[in-house]
Structure formats: structure tokens, C-alpha cells
């Protein structure tokens, strides 16, 4: 096995990436550069519109599924309505 979980096209890699926008020009036309930026908590993207490289913090407050979350409306809402994930 020589492959890694890195693929081109952020939305194909992970649903969490589909709302990521370039912080400079707000373009959604971006590509994944690295699953890790300057720290392991960041993902590095490149904007294909303005060619800016930018880091996006993975920390969006999402939680894994659990029966306990059904009773935690605040967390469920925060997960569903996570903002456009700009960094």
C-alpha cells in the first residue's frame, strides 16, 4: 500500500471541505494542497482564482455521532449550521 488519503478536489475528499472559500477573494474554486498546514490542526488549500495559498483550521466544533447527541440540540445545530469555514 503506497497511497495516502490525499486526493485532488477538496469536496471529493471530504464533505467538511465543501463550504471552504478563499479568505481573500471568496472563490470556491480551490484545490487541496495538503491535509496538514503549518500545524496538524490546519489544512492547506490553494485558490485557483487568485492563486493564494491559505490554511483552514479543522476545528469546526463537530462531534462524532452518538445517541447522546440526540439530546444535545445545541450541538446538533452547531454542527448542521457550521459557518463557511473561513480562515
Amino acid at each position, binding site marked *: 500500500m503506497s497511497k495516502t*488519503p490525499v486526493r485532488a478536489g477538496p469536496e471529493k475528499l471530504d464533505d467538511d471541505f465543501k463550504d471552504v472559500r478563499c479568505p481573500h477573494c471568496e472563490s470556491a474554486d480551490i484545490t487541496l494542497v495538503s491535509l*496538514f498546514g503549518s500545524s496538524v490542526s490546519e489544512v492547506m488549500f490553494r485558490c485557483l482564482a487568485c492563486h493564494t495559498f491559505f490554511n483552514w483550521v479543522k476545528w469546526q466544533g463537530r*462531534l462524532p*455521532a452518538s*445517541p*447522546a447527541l440526540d439530546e*444535545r440540540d445545541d450541538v446538533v445545530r452547531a454542527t448542521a449550521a457550521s459557518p463557511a469555514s473561513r480562515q
Partner: protein
Amino acid sequence: METYSIADLDPAVAKALESDLLAVADTKLVLGNWFVMCVNNGRSLPDFAALLGQSAAVLGHARSLYLYLVNFGHTYQHLEQGRGADAIASMNLLDAPPQSWEDFIASIYLAEQASWMLMSGFLKHPDRALAGLAEKIGQETYFHLKYANGWAALFAESGGEAFIEALSARYPLALAWFGDTGHDPLHEAGQRSVPLSALKEGFAREVAKIADVVRLPLDLPDAVEPGSDWRPQSRRSGPLSERLFEVIRFKDPEAVHP
């Protein structure tokens, strides 16, 4: 505003809470060492970064839980450095080292998923410190599970049989970790927001979902039957092996900063 105090709990409830938190903390301690030991088996630089990141997070979870357990009358030094192999309450699932990359990913997935399920029961705990700790652990576990899911998708491209085989072999030990879920004193006492039985079912449901990722049928076996050496409060059978204890034990107590 009501204040929460462990001293106000029924002693049996307090002991059950302490035991569950120690079982998660010790599982995280061993899991963190799994990540450390397996870093060099990563398949790429992103793997190395991911494994090191996960080791740091998981060992941080263990440390945070040990710090919380000081509330039960322990000293932090005792919890981290003063216990022998027979006092470590880690999941039996992690006793045997990984036999392959697929086995490694299956094992860390099961350990993270099971320990998250138990911690998620404390998301609404009356002590905001514990509830917040559960939430922070969950936020980091979210990405650890993604890492395993990403690898499962890659295993699918080459058939995925070895991963499913490893998952099926380790799964009964993860399921056994939940123990007897018929009576849950923590839920009855308002310490756990959902019964342990629901968390165990939730765990089984989440594991079954990985079959969708691998696109192979997954026929998960039942939990292993507990042996005579099963310790319900530690959620494990028998002591840690000396070999594994040598990996996780605190090596140099004399060097500890007081």
C-alpha cells in the same frame, strides 16, 4: 446556582463514575502509545503528521482525564506514574499489537469509536468541567475517526478484505468493553445522559457504517464472553501484559518535576 460536588454523590455512583473515566483515560494512554510506536509504519508524510498529531491528542485526553480524576482523591502522580500493570484499566482490544496496517487502522478506529461513545454519555454531565472535557475529546476524535475512514476508503480500492477481517477479529473485544449494560447506575443517578445500552448500540451502528465505506459485507460477531478474570470496574480481563506495560509505563519517575 447549584454546585456540583463528587462528595455529594452516592459512594457507589461515585465509584462507577471514577471507574468509567479511568477506563477511558487508560485506554487513551495505551492508544496514544500505539500511535507513537506505529508512526514509522506510516505510508507518507501526511501519515506521520497524522499519527503524531493523534498521539499528542490522545495522550492529552489521558492527561486531562487523570487531572479530573484527582477530584476522586487520587494524586496525579499516582495515576500517571504510580500504578502497576494490574491497575491499568485499558481496553483488552489494545492488548495485542497490530499485525498489519489494516489491523492497525481497524484497531484505532474501534478504540476511538468505543471510547468516544462512553465519553459522549457525559456531554450533559452536571459538572460543566466534565461535560466540557467530553466535548473537547469528541471534537478531536471527530478527526481521528475521519483518518480511519479515509484509510478504509483506500482499502476498498484494493478489495478491503484484510481490513474487514481485522475489524471483525477485534470487534468482539471492543463490544465486550461496554460490559453488562443491563443496569446502569450512572444513568439512573443522572450522571450519564443516555443508558450505557444505548451507547453500546450506537457503537455497533457506527461500526456497521464502515462497511459502506469498504463496500464489503460486514458480519460482526457478538462480544466475547467475559472470563473469570473479568473486572467489570476496569472494563477488562486480566492485567496488562508485562510487554505492553513496559511500553506504556512511566520510565523515569525520579526525573518528574514536582
